[in-house]
């Protein structure tokens, strides 16, 4: 099976899944116990039958269900998600404003998680059953077992209230955000050359990112440890040792490369889990991203906003899994056989 064939097949599968996601959200819109026309027009507007008829026709709600579906898919593809009944603006604008905040947080969380998890996993495997190993294993299993939003609250208490490190939000109060280039405060502030803003943003992103990454950290650390231990039992490692290579060379040059395949495979999945986790973590840290948006929308009974955000998060998740899968087949030819 050629690489190209595999990739095309995978992309096709991804597209089918995305259509499935669209369909599921469409079905959910039909299950909502609320009349969208009534929400749009308000009680005043609903008294005018001509207006109601006009909106119903404009939104094709009087058409058969499959026509509604085509209309809906067309709208989604054009980024037409309707108006948020809470912020009154188009949902797509709200999402565009909040999207970079969530992505910046997720990427940073991901980096922190990997920087902690992979070295501790390696240490744990190399010093198996030594105090370092026990310590890191206990820590990772406790990290996984705690609810992320609770860790966030605990960190806020310790680092903000006790140590005065940095509070919630993306910047300190009174600090103006950098001009909008990428929407990532860490990058935009550097482009503008405002280093004080950069460090302030860095301080503010640290706690939420650490919180968001806790699950991934514990999981990856455990995975790295077990993968490395597995590889260290292999014959080629024995050969390397018998050749008289230094232990350091055996571990870092020979074993680690193969051991890291397993954690790398899960990275896409973990990144996706962060998008989901951001719903709670952003709420705790009042981080104005998509997760906090969806929670605010829930309290405002803002269906267009809730549906659109869910859809966007699911699509990002699917696409990131797709990209990781494809990258992975390019890196590791063995996958194609399976």
């Amino acid at each position, binding site marked *: 099976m050629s690489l190209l064939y595999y990739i095309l097949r995978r992309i096709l599968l991804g597209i089918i899944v995305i259509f499935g996601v669209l369909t599921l959200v469409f079905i959910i819109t039909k299950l909502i116990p609320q009349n969208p026309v009534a929400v749009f027009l308000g009680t005043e507007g609903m008294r005018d039958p001509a207006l109601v008829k006009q909106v119903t026709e404009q939104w094709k709600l009087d058409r058969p269900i499959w026509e509604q579906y085509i209309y809906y898919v067309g709208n989604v593809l054009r980024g037409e998600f309707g108006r948020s009944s809470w912020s009154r603006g188009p949902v797509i604008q709200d999402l565009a404003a909040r999207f970079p905040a969530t992505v910046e947080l997720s990427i940073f969380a991901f980096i922190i998680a990997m920087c902690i998890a992979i070295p501790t996993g390696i240490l744990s495997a190399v010093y198996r059953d030594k105090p370092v190993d026990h310590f890191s294993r206990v820590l990772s299993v406790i990290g996984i077992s705690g*609810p*992320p*939003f609770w860790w966030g609250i605990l960190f806020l208490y310790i680092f903000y*209230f006790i140590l005065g490190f940095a509070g919630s939000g993306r910047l300190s109060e009174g600090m103006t955000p950098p001009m909008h280039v990428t929407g990532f405060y860490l990058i935009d502030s550097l482009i503008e050359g405002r280093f004080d803003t950069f460090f302030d943003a860095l301080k503010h992103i640290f706690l939420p990112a650490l919180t968001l990454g806790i699950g991934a950290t514990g999981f990856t650390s455990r995975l790295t440890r077990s993968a490395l231990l597995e590889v260290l039992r292999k014959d080629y490692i024995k050969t390397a040792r018998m050749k008289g290579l230094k232990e350091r060379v055996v571990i870092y040059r020979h074993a680690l490369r193969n051991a890291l395949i397993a954690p790398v495979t899960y990275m896409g999945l973990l990144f996706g889990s962060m*998008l989901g986790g951001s719903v*709670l973590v952003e709420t705790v840290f009042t981080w104005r991203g998509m997760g906090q948006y969806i929670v605010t929308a829930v309290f405002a009974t803002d269906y267009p906003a809730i549906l659109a955000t869910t859809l966007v998060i699911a699509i990002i*998740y699917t696409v990131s899994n797709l990209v990781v899968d494809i990258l992975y087949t390019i890196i590791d030819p063995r996958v194609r056989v399976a």
Partner: protein
Amino acid sequence: MKFDKESPRVRELLLTLKVFGKSKMAMISLGILLLFFAIAILAPWISPYDPTETHTSDLFMPPCPKYPLGTDHLGRDNLSRILYGARYSMFASLLVVAVTVIIGMPIGAVSGYFGGKLDEILMRITDVILSFPGITLALLLAYIMGRGIYSAALALSLVGWPSMARIVRGVVLSEKGKDYVIAARIIGKSDFQILFGEIMPNCMYPVIIQAVMMMGTVIISLAGLSFIGVGVQPPEPDWGVIIAEGRQYLLEYPWLSILPGILMITVVLAYNLVGDRLRDALDPRLRGELAAK
């Protein structure tokens, strides 16, 4: 069924229990879980107060003989609230996992056994559901069904069944070509008899392991849904609700939020440790090694 000590299934069960019992950590964890279940059942009898009863003259009391764990912003007894809160965490999560098994197991079994178009369609459905980060879809579903513990629980089951279905499907796929299945077919057993009578008993262990492993995640997700306000509704004392309420008074009274979290970690950790050990004890490769230790 007669209890026959020599039958292979019974021997396997006894060996598994023996291996499981050898781990002190796993036994302690099991004890902790039983303790929390006992607390959940006995909450109405062991709680000193009604968990929603307010004492307006005793706001934010520190621990004292009258209120062993102090009171919250409405003067409610923290101990009673936490004891009652165990009911939601322990039983709602059990309900979620049970529904997950009830939906996921037959779908996975049918999908793996019959294969073809049906399998293709069912697996694409699981793909679609797994394309949503769990909590977002659960949030949406719970919200549509109306806020409350039952819709939150149902939402999590609807999100959770695909992983169960996939595990069962995998086992069925690997079993269906084996000799005992072919033998059953030769003697004229129907597909239904083969699938549910012959193959499914072999899915029990993977399903049990997955179910135990899921418990922790479900407890955390349920509390998360309550925390954002679509799960258990205040004034009911779910741990997620208590954490959310305490959050507003974090600076002066951090314990309001911190304590329920510690209890949740204890329960989830216990489930994870039991699950880990169970997986090892049921692994045919590891079992002999562990039993000999």
